């Protein structure tokens, strides 16, 4: 599964601004509740953790349960006071981590 996350962060902002960040990653988020044609339970496989950091400091994170819809989408806010890099990471049940970065210029 080659998941390419989609993240929307404004390229520029004024110091002290509160910006909106939107993130989406492709993932089936198999809930562990569904059954296949033979009646066997399809094992759970979801993204269980999402985290956003700015210049190494945690901004926002989410502990995710199977009730979050497939292709998990999160929208949240951040207050920026300096230029820097947002780091985003999604952790799968199997331990793989999908990550990406976005830079922002703050004036």
């Amino acid at each position, binding site marked *: 599964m080659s998941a390419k996350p989609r993240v929307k962060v404004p390229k520029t902002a004024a110091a002290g601004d509160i910006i909106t960040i939107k993130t989406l990653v492709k993932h089936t988020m198999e809930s562990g509740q569904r059954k296949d044609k033979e009646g066997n339970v399809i094992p759970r496989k979801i993204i269980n953790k999402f985290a956003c950091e700015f210049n190494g*400091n*945690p901004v*926002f994170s989410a502990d995710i349960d199977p009730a979050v*819809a497939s292709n998990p989408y999160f929208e*949240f806010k951040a207050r920026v006071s300096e230029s820097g890099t947002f780091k985003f990471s999604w952790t799968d049940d199997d331990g793989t981590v999908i990550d990406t970065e976005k830079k922002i210029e703050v004036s």
Partner: protein
Amino acid sequence: MNLQRRKLLGGTVGIATVGLLGGAANALAAPEDVAAAIKAIAGDAEIGSGMITLTAPEIAENGNSVPISVSVDSPMTDDDYVASVSIYAEGNPLPEVVTFNFSPASGVASASTRMRLAQTQNVVAVAKMSNGSVFSDTRNVKVTIGGCGG
């Protein structure tokens, strides 16, 4: 001939009823589970209302993807901010949905996502502030097509 047909019909209805009941008894979370989970977050703190707003559609046509958002009234400074907001669904197989962890760097405590709803039910959001106080908000969402597989 006619009698047999009646019997057959009766039998079918009987089986169908058993099937339906079996489905309903399929280990769904109960409001008590949600209450217990909230108690675990709140501890001894009293659960207040206000401060937190949960936004969800009144009617969700597709339970597989229901947009929800929460926002909490807070200055979000270093010593007064929203630590976390947890979302619970009273009628899903598992009551937990998601927990958002905020920080002073969030600026505003608001977040949106999309969730699954198995049936018409209450969705509860619980906010925990940095000072330990707890607030909650509940919305009833009517679901046309449930979204938890089966």
